[in-house]
Structures are given as structure tokens and as C-alpha cells.
């Protein structure tokens, strides 16, 4: 049994940023992560982080771009915070040691990104996530933060509707531990592993979201899944939007820059939902190159590629066998980011007192129906910091709660039973079936019958998952057991996504219904909230969108 004032679950950017904020104030915060912090998926972010710095730019313009990008589903009060606090947050990171590329005048260099009306993405070559993650990790060390690494959180513990702590499984020893705390922050990231062909790390299994919905905290707007337009054809590995920011072309099999048809003004730098749909249309209509589209950077020249996109060059060579200096890169859309997540306000608070969430696992919502490139890193630091600040305030009046240790026993039993089971099903294979089904039927283009087929498949898999057998019976580093548990999490998340997507009979942002191709503000300008109904199903409710400055308009690029 551990006891701390604050437990931060997840050691990506949002978690680390909150930790720094709390530790700076001398607060007893512990970080719990199922991997070592630097293995977190934030480190894979490549292209940039948005903030209006330039004389000719303004945060208000960033504000509008983000609202428009969200297809008017983003909450404008929250987006105003995101964009007006952006520059200060970037400078804060810079003060902490993060390095950004420089412009000729000594300021932070900025590149264009999709859906942004001004080049405002700050970057470090094409590895800004890595730079930020390691920079924040170093600061976490600076403030001597306790890290419980390779602990897998299985439950949230509450006491009379207020947070009391978490239950965690120590992967190294196989022991279950209760961690009592006055405040808990989930910065647990997304669920990319719900889909085959995704850009996400294998650890992105939506654990925090699954634990939350099981604890009665609603998940918001889960039907909105971002498909990144440029992921390597054979592995789904990300190719930064920064490549297009630097001037790359998208070509179909005829060698035509087809974006002129779909977004004549923005071209390749249209938002991700628009570009992903354009690519999928080209592929579906037979103008793909072996099921892919070509991303051409050759005209940028070797020197610029090596300076600005060195990681992309190396990834293309290592994982696709293509040197982008001489050949175009075969790419296709792949699952990338979750706009939805644990419902929070703009201080990271959820419906349970003392329970917070920030980063991709949370839905504030600043991304609405479609996130703009360069806004997710910003989201992590802005709302990670705000959650940290708010928790510090909350602690002043928070009382210690009773930690019900039977929760630890209960989770231990679930794991023990799973471990003992000698069923015939292998989670590894079920996972592939689920991922393939989700890609095929709840992907870039959606339609009722296909999604119902997906739902049937999910229900079938839930049944079969009861017969999962575990080979590994030991306690030390039993990754077999952890992965089986993770599979149950992505299965639950897949169901929430699919049911939400069937429910929402309109097309908005990344959620495109071929049977309802128009946005329907009258009926659907609202957030969906999913909770478990206690009978093995999912119940939906709705909440209002905050509209302060910008009335919904048609969205063209």
C-alpha cells in the first residue's frame, strides 16, 4: 500500500507536465506508468506544436482555425484557453530546456500545418515530441519526482463519490498495490491499437478510458477517431504532417496532385479529415498505387530533407525501403488520434471530485470532431499544466478519503482467474480480428450496415474473450497477462466507438457517414456521452457545445 497526495497515471507529456507543476510547488505527487516514462508515445510526435508568435499572426486566428478545424464541435471556452495560453506554455517549455529550431531573427522557427491559416507550428526537426518528452522527463528528475514505473493501473477507487486512489499491478513482481491519494490524474493517452494500420505505440490500448467508464465517468465524443493522412503503407508508421508543411505533394497513380479537387485553396495542407477522405476516395476509385497514395518530397532537395525531415528519411528507408530523396513514399490513412475521451472541464476536472484527466485520454473538448495537426502536443502541455495547478488548489481543502482495500483484492482475483484460465482462444489473434474489423467498417468512411456488422463482431469477440487462455503462469514480468487485460480494454473502447458512430447520424469532422453525408447542426451540434448501463451495454446521453465567439458556418478549405 502506497500513500501520496497526488497520483499521476501515465508519463507522457500531459502527465509529466502536470508532475512538474506539482513538484515545483513541493507537492507529494507520484507518477505511475506501465512503461518507463521515455517509452511513452508522446515521444513519437514528429511535426510541431502550435502557438501564435509572429507579428502578423494572432492567437485569435489560431482560436478560429481550431474551432473551424473541429467542425464547430470543439468547446469554444476551452479552445480560447488553449490558444491564448499557447505562447506562454511554449516559452515555459523553452525555459525548462526544450530546444526548438530557430528562425533567422533568433525566435522560434515555425512551419505551416494543416488547417492553420498561418505558419505557427514550432518544431525541432521532425522530432518535437521526442524533444519535449525528454525535456519534461529531465525536469521531473530535477524536481526529484517518485516514479513507479512498470505498474499497470487497473481500477480507480472512490469513496462516497470522491476519489480515493487507484489499484495498480506491479508488472515486475506480479503484486497488486493500492495507491491512496487525495487527487488522481489520468494522462493515459489514446487507444490507437483498436485499429489495424495505426500510427500508435503497442502500449496505446485505451486503458485509462476503459478504467474511467468502468468507474462511472462518461467518455465523450468517442466516435471521433482521427485518421492521419500520411502513414507508411506497410507498417502504419507516422510520416509527419510537417512533410507537407515543408511543401510535400500528394500524388495519385496518374501523378496528379489530386487535392486540387478536394481542397483547392489549402491543397495538401487541408485538415487531416479532409485529406484522409480525399486519399481514400482516390484509392477506392482506382487511382491508388497498390492501395496507397504517394507522398513526394523530392523537390525539396536532399539538404532540406536532411535538415528538416531527417527522421522521416530514416523511417522511410528502414521501414518502407524507400529513400524519399529519390523516390516518393507510399502512404495511406491510418488511425492516429482520439478526439474523444474522459469528459473533463478546462481544468481537467471530471465528474468525480478529485479525479482529473489531461492529454489524449481526456476530452475537454478542444478538438471537437477533428483535431488540427500541432494541437495535440499543445493540448498536453496546456491542460497538463492547468490540471497540475488546479490539483494544487484542490489539495488545500481536500480531505483524506477511505481507501477500500477490497478493490485491490477484487482486481487481484480478476487477474488470478484470467491467469488460471486454460481456454482455447488467444488474445493475440482476437486482437487482430478486432483491429481488422474496425479498420474495415468503422474507418474513414462509415455506413450503418457496415457498422452494425462491426458491432456484431465485437459482441462475438466479447463472448470468445471469456475463453482466453494464458500461457504464462508466473509472477515476474508476466506480459502475457497484461496484454490479455489490455485486449479487454480495447474491446470495450471499440464498442463505445462503434455504438457512438452508429448513433450519430450526420457527417462532422472525422466522423463521415456515407448514409448521412451532411453536417446536421440542428440535431447533432452536441457532445455524446457514453456510460455503462450496468447490464453489459452502453448508454448514451448528450451535452451542449460551448459556442462563444464563432457561429457555425459551412466548412470549406
Amino acid at each position: 500500500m502506497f500513500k501520496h497526495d497526488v497520483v499521476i497515471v501515465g508519463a507522457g507529456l500531459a502527465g509529466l507536465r502536470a508532475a512538474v507543476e506539482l513538484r515545483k510547488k513541493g507537492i507529494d505527487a507520484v507518477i505511475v506508468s506501465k512503461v518507463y516514462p521515455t517509452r511513452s508515445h508522446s515521444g513519437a510526435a514528429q511535426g510541431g506544436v502550435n502557438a501564435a508568435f509572429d507579428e502578423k499572426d494572432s492567437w485569435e486566428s489560431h482560436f478560429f482555425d481550431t474551432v473551424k478545424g473541429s467542425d464547430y464541435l470543439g468547446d469554444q471556452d476551452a479552445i480560447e484557453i488553449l490558444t491564448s495560453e499557447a505562447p506562454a506554455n511554449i516559452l515555459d517549455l523553452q525555459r525548462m530546456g526544450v530546444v526548438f529550431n530557430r528562425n533567422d531573427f533568433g525566435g522560434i522557427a515555425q512551419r505551416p500545418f494543416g488547417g492553420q491559416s498561418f505558419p505557427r507550428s514550432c518544431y525541432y526537426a521532425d522530432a518535437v515530441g521526442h524533444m519535449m518528452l525528454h525535456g519534461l522527463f529531465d525536469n521531473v528528475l530535477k524536481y526529484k519526482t517518485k516514479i513507479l514505473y512498470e505498474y499497470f493501473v487497473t481500477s480507480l477507487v472512490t469513496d462516497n463519490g470522491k476519489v480515493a486512489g487507484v489499484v495498480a499491478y506491479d508488472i515486475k513482481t506480479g503484486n497488486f498495490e493500492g495507491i491512496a491519494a487525495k487527487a488522481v490524474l489520468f494522462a493515459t493517452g489514446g487507444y490507437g491499437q483498436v485499429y489495424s494500420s495505426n500510427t500508435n505505440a503497442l502500449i496505446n490500448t485505451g486503458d485509462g478510458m476503459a478504467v474511467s467508464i468502468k468507474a462511472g465517468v462518461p467518455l465523450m465524443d468517442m466516435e471521433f477517431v482521427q485518421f492521419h493522412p500520411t502513414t507508411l503503407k506497410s507498417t502504419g508508421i507516422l510520416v509527419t504532417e510537417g512533410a507537407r508543411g515543408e511543401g510535400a505533394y500528394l500524388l495519385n497513380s496518374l501523378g496528379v496532385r489530386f487535392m486540387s479537387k478536394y481542397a483547392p485553396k489549402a491543397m495538401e495542407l487541408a485538415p487531416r479529415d479532409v485529406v484522409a477522405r480525399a486519399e481514400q476516395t482516390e484509392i477506392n476509385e482506382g487511382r491508388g498505387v497498390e492501395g496507397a497514395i504517394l507522398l513526394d518530397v523530392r523537390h525539396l532537395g536532399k539538404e532540406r530533407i536532411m535538415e528538416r525531415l531527417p527522421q522521416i528519411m530514416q523511417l522511410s528507408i528502414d521501414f518502407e525501403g524507400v529513400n524519399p530523396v529519390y523516390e516518393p513514399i507510399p502512404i495511406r490513412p491510418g488511425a492516429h488520434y482520439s478526439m474523444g475521451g474522459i469528459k473533463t472541464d478546462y481544468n481537467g476536472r471530471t465528474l468525480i471530485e478529485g479525479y482529473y484527466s489531461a492529454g489524449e485520454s481526456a476530452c475537454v473538448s478542444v478538438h471537437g470532431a477533428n483535431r488540427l495537426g500541432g494541437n495535440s502536443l499543445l493540448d498536453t502541455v496546456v491542460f497538463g499544466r492547468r490540471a497540475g495547478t488546479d490539483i494544487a488548489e484542490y489539495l488545500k481543502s481536500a480531505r483524506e478519503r477511505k481507501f477500500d482495500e477490497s478493490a485491490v483484492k477484487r482486481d487481484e482475483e480478476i487477474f488470478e482467474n484470467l491467469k488460471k484460465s486454460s481456454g482455447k482462444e488467444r488474445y493475440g489473434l482476437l486482437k487482430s480480428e478486432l483491429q481488422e474489423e474496425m479498420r474495415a467498417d468503422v474507418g474513414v468512411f462509415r455506413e450503418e450496415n457496415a457498422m452494425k456488422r462491426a458491432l456484431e463482431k465485437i459482441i462475438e469477440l466479447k463472448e470468445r474473450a471469456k475463453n482466453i487462455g494464458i500461457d504464462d503462469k508466473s509472477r515476474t514480468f508476466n506480459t502475457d497477462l497484461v496484454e490479455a487485460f489490455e485486449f479487454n480494454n480495447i474491446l470495450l473502447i471499440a464498442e463505445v466507438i462503434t455504438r457512438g458512430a452508429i448513433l450519430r447520424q450526420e457527417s462532422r469532422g472525422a466522423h463521415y457517414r456515407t448514409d448521412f453525408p451532411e453536417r446536421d447542426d440542428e440535431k447533432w451540434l452536441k457532445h455524446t456521452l457514453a456510460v455503462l448501463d450496468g447490464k453489459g451495454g452502453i448508454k448514451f446521453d448528450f451535452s451542449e457545445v460551448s459556442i462563444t465567439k464563432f457561429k457555425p458556418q459551412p466548412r470549406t478549405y
Partner: protein
Amino acid sequence: MEFRIRAYRFNPEADKKPYYKEYTVEDFPGMTVLNALMKVKAESDGTLSFRRSCRSAICGSCAMKINGITKLACKTQVGPEIDKFGIINVEPLANMPVIRDLIVDQENFFNKIKEIKPYLLGQREDEAYEAFHVLQEGEKINQPLYYKSEFQNLTGNNDTPNCILCECCYSECGGVVGNPKYLGPAALAKLYRYSEDPRDNDRNGSRLVNGSKPEGIWDCVHCQSCEEFCPKGISPVKSIVKLHEKAVKNSITFSAGSKHVVSIAKSIGETGRLDEIKVAFESGGITGLISDLPVAFGAGLKGKIPPLRHKLIKDMEDIRLAYKELDLEDKL
């Protein structure tokens, strides 16, 4: 095509000592070693244990020995390995205790990272904190200016900040083999990165002083393995050499290693020759000299006795010129 993968196996709960287990895997185009391990785990043996996360060579989880060489499993294609070795042999990283199968204990490695103070020093915290400023309507923010050239050293040596802490260099490091307490290449490259940061304000040079202690920068054996095996193309050894120069330039020469370097430079500057006795004395003092005695005695038995007094070599003028060129005139 089917191929064989032979994995190092050890479960402390069941095995007295490690053993190897062979699996047969069906290949697909572009398959990586990580893909192969995942396939084994998903389809036939869930007990095979390894770490993995991003699968795109940026998180550093899946470093392991593949056919004897430390690599990232996610970045290593099966095809070329099979062509060369006929099998995929996977083993845990060296220089670290094995917890289970391919999983090693990284505690020591990360403690060493902590030890070098991997963050900016000497900033005024309260000031930095107060400076956070939320913009009002129509407001712009001023940013401090830093020119590209100011960051040049920091990103030099093949982009030191790109280090992903994957432990490949540490596993191959000759210095750690000789002395497990040696900080190792990744930690020292990070020390270099922060000491070259224009925002760092380490007024008393504490970071460099710390790094100069035993087990620090002077314990590098210059085997170059860290550069050779880095999956991100970084050269920690070049950073370490730069740290040597920096330490000497800043007269942080209390360690035997730095005294050794200074003494050699002096000896050559004076006579053009290496005065072994003097260098040994100046590097290690009396105790150093005594501990070197068995070596000297052994060499003496083989007839290798250095002269007590060295004559100047005849091209001394060239050496003087070279020293002037290198800014080492004080060593003449």
C-alpha cells in the same frame, strides 16, 4: 519463407540457469525482429517476454542483442539477418542484470542519467515561474532570442539530443565492462548536451566537476562502440572527448585521467617524447606510481626500460608550431 528464431530464456521463478528456445516463424515482406517476436508471442508461446512500445525506433524499449550485436528489434529487418546468419539469435542487453528472458533491469542505467543533473542549472526558478503569462485580446508575447549558432555545439556530434535512452551504447560499452560503476556513454552525452546549452548557467561548473570524478568522463576507454552501435546515429564518444577538452580548458584537472592528459601534453611539448615515469607520477602521484610498479617491473624484465632523461627530438620546432596552432602554448 520459414525461418528460425532462437531466444534466450530465463524465468527466475522456474529456471536455475538460462537456456535457449527455438521457434519457427513464417516470414512476411519487411518483417522486423520485433514483428517475429510478437508473432511468436501471439500465436504460439505467450511466455516469451520482452519490452516493446512504439515499433518505430523512437521509444527505445526493444533494444536487445540480435545475432550478437545490440540493436533495436523494431528497426532490424529479418531478411538480411537470415541471409547473413541463417537464424535470428536474440539475447538480452549486456552490462545489465537480466530480470526475465529479454528484459533487463534498467535501474542502474537510469540512476546514472539522474546523476549527471540532466537539466538546466542556475536558473532563477521563481522568476521563470512568474513569467508565465496568458494573453489578453489583441496581445502578443515577447520571446527571448537565441540564435541558431548558440545551439550548434549542443546539437553537434550527430545530434546528441536525439538520444532515445535505448541503452544500446551502454550494452556495448567497453568502459562499463571494465567498471560497472562507470556512468556510460548515454549519461555522458547528456551531460555534454546540457553543458553546451546556451541557457545553462552552471556558474561554478558543478556539472563538469561532477562528471570528472572517478567513474565519469575520464573512464571512457575510447573503444568507439557507442558510436558504432547507436541506432540514432549519435556519437557519445565524440561528446565525451569534447568534455575532456572542456574540463582541461576550465582547469578541472583533479582526476587522474585529466592529469594524465595534461602530463602527456607537457611531456611532448618539452622534449617531443613521452616520459613514462614522469607521466605516471604526474597522473597518479606516489600511489599511482607504486601501483604501476608491477607493470614497470614486468616491462623491465623484457628489457623495456625507459630512459631517466629524455633528449629533445630533432623536429622539436615542428612540435612547437603544432602546439601554437592548437593553442597549447602553455604546455611548451
